[in-house]
């Protein structure tokens, strides 16, 4: 077994709205091979993500060789997924899948600066699989739960900062600290996205249960 497998990076669960705000990237060491992390605004690092959503559009945007872009929509926004010759399996799925379809994607966050100087965040897929609506719904609930956990930890840490004299037991939260320094938008926005995502699921369920 290789060393890298011993410390396999966890695939974070993050909604599109938060993912697209994760514009700051960093490494934990100076080592060239050290992994790259995107900083999530709710206070965590992500070297890998697992996302499930609706593939609504695919397009070959490559000039010399095939380079596929997919738009994957969740209840809070759109993930942009790019796959080219170095991700042949993922590129093939984007080429062959007829939108709309539910897809599950394991991939790495990538940032690039646009001409106007803003930073865009996209997904470089390791794998793309076509899945069913039950998997999509499960992902929404799971991602809501993980996001709420991060927001809770962030707020605990923040409360501690505001009352440094109190003998609080809130743990240090390195990435919350980093997020507050790097980002402007308040974490409560992401709570609102969670509520919106869950309400959409509830609506779908009550519609389904309503008598015809």
């Amino acid at each position: 077994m290789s060393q890298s497998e011993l410390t396999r990076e966890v695939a974070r669960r993050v909604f599109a709205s938060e993912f697209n705000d994760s514009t700051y990237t960093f490494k934990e060491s100076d080592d060239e091979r050290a992994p790259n992390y995107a900083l999530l605004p709710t206070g965590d690092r992500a070297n890998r993500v697992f996302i499930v959503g609706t593939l609504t559009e695919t397009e070959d945007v490559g000039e010399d060789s095939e380079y596929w872009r997919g738009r994957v929509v969740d209840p809070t926004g759109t993930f942009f997924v790019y796959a080219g010759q170095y991700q042949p399996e993922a590129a093939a799925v984007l080429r062959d899948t007829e939108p709309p379809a539910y897809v599950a994607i394991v991939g790495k966050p990538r940032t690039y600066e646009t001409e106007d100087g803003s930073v865009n965040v996209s997904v470089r897929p390791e794998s793309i699989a076509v899945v069913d609506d039950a998997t999509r719904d499960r992902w929404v609930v799971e991602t809501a739960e993980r996001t709420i956990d991060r927001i809770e930890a962030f707020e605990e840490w923040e409360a501690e900062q505001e009352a440094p004299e109190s003998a609080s037991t809130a743990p240090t939260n390195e990435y919350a600290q980093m997020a507050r320094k790097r980002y402007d938008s308040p974490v409560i926005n992401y709570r609102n996205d969670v509520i919106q995502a869950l309400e959409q699921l509830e609506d779908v369920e009550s519609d389904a249960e309503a008598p015809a």
Partner: protein
Amino acid sequence: MSDVRQHADDIHDQFSDHIDVSVEDVEERLTTLVDEYKVPMDEARRSVTNHYLEEADLEREDISRGGSEAANVEDVDEPEQWIDLTAKVIELWDPRSDSVAQVGLLGDPTGTIKFTKWAKSDLPTLEEGGVYELRNVVTDEYQGRYSVKLNSTTVIEELDEELEVGDDTSEIEGALVDMQSGSGLIKRCPKEDCTRVLQNGRCNEHGDVEGEFDLRIKAVVDDGIDAHEVIFDKEATEDLTGLSLEEAKEMAMDALDTTIVADEIMDDIVGTYYRIEGPTFGRYVLADDVEELDGPADAEQLLIKARSM
């Protein structure tokens, strides 16, 4: 408490019922051997223990094993504890160092634990499948995982009985996010007790051999907090994929390529949520009981929580 003092305490406990000896006296003897004569601690313990055995006119078996207590595998949660185990040798592994005589996995009804037997401790050889009473072994911890070390004070007694081995069962729930190389239709070495997976028709131990086909999946199941490595053996793979070993062989023969089986399986399982139960071996979970999670998840409780934040 210093290391020497701890050992002195252990030895003193063993003899306090038999002879009048102070902990200080034991400690001084140990210190002399360790500091002045540069004798390793387990040798020093052996020597001092033998000295008192002689003085008390006792056999090793007569002394109380004070300091070491009868324990179950699942009780081991602290390093540097002297315990007695009754356990079965489940597996022996190849020692990576000359200082190690034997290394492998022990099990009792409560779970499994790695053991190491030092070469210099000069103990009898343990056989795979044998059940032993192991008195006075010491626990150790490395990166959160516990093991036991058999040392020169350890007494090994083979028992003529069967012992049912229980599992350290894990239950994990998450998305299957990756399937690793070495999955799908593989070939194993046919030599007795080898079963190593062949690389390009070669066994690491036996060289070029005529391999035997097997089905296996090595996968990563990830819940967004931890990434777990899960192994599906032939039965678990057949259950998970609905593909039998015979069908997999036919599929590979038709395509003149064994990798088609892995590709086919991968399309089927990556991106799917599972609940997996099974014993843990090191960092692996062996998939015993697998359930695909395709029912709806409950959003209501979460929604209440999010609204109240």
